[in-house]
């Protein structure tokens, strides 16, 4: 056996002798389907798509208002389209899911201490929910009065 065969075999550039081999198990593309916790995370992230969808609907409304009463009637008709109605009901679920998960994140992101004790999570989240109710009632009143 010649000495040349003892040389390390040719490796792609970037290889160094004694470089540790990475341990990187391949993760399935569907890693988030197996467990409720992961699925919930992905659903929460997906809620952003429905957020963007409602922004589009709002822009359609503003555009209709710019164009006149007939365009506004057309917009109201469009929102009665069964497909759009179903999409909006689904969107509402996702957006409320976003709201709840967003508010419940606050106690974890900034734990509040009072008198040396940690304030219970629901008390830290409570002001957000109260503000949400007040703001929602205010917006509804402005729109519908």
């Amino acid at each position, binding site marked *: 056996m010649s000495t040349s065969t003892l040389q390390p075999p040719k490796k792609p550039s970037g290889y160094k002798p004694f470089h540790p081999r990475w341990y990187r198990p391949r993760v399935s593309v569907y890693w988030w389907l197996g467990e409720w916790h992961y699925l919930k995370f992905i659903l929460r992230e997906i809620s952003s798509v429905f957020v963007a969808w409602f*922004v589009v609907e709002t*822009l359609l409304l503003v555009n209709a208002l710019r164009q006149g009463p007939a365009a506004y009637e057309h917009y109201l008709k469009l929102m009665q389209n069964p497909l759009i109605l179903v999409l909006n009901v689904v969107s509402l679920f996702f957006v409320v899911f976003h709201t709840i998960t967003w508010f419940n994140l606050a106690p974890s992101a900034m734990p509040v201490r009072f008198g040396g004790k940690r304030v219970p999570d629901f008390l830290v989240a409570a002001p957000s929910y109260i503000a949400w109710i007040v*703001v929602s009632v205010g*917006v509804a009143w402005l729109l519908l009065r």
Partner: protein
Amino acid sequence: MAKQSNEAFFWMLFSAGGVVAAMLIPVQLFLFGVAIPLGWVQAPSYEHLVSLLRMPLVRIYLFVFCSLPLFHWAHRFRFTLYDGLQVKHLNEVIFTLCYGGAIAGSAVAGYLLWSAP
């Protein structure tokens, strides 16, 4: 992928958009998307909505209402594609499409609100 130093800025937009979306979208989506189409609530008159739209404060409100949640969407959607679908090799494309979309949407909102009568 954006430089690490920009990440805080995008995160701030994401977070501000998250608050705006959480607070304001449910009520408006419920009214315009569900309650009014189903006839639970009478649709506001055209004149009433236009009189609201004439107020500068309402236009600023609507611009913030549209723009920040789009940046919120861009951030979340970007990372959902990265992690959920594992398409990390498309980083630059996804980044450009998401934030480009948010900027384009904000520009449309700005134009519509600016030029509204």
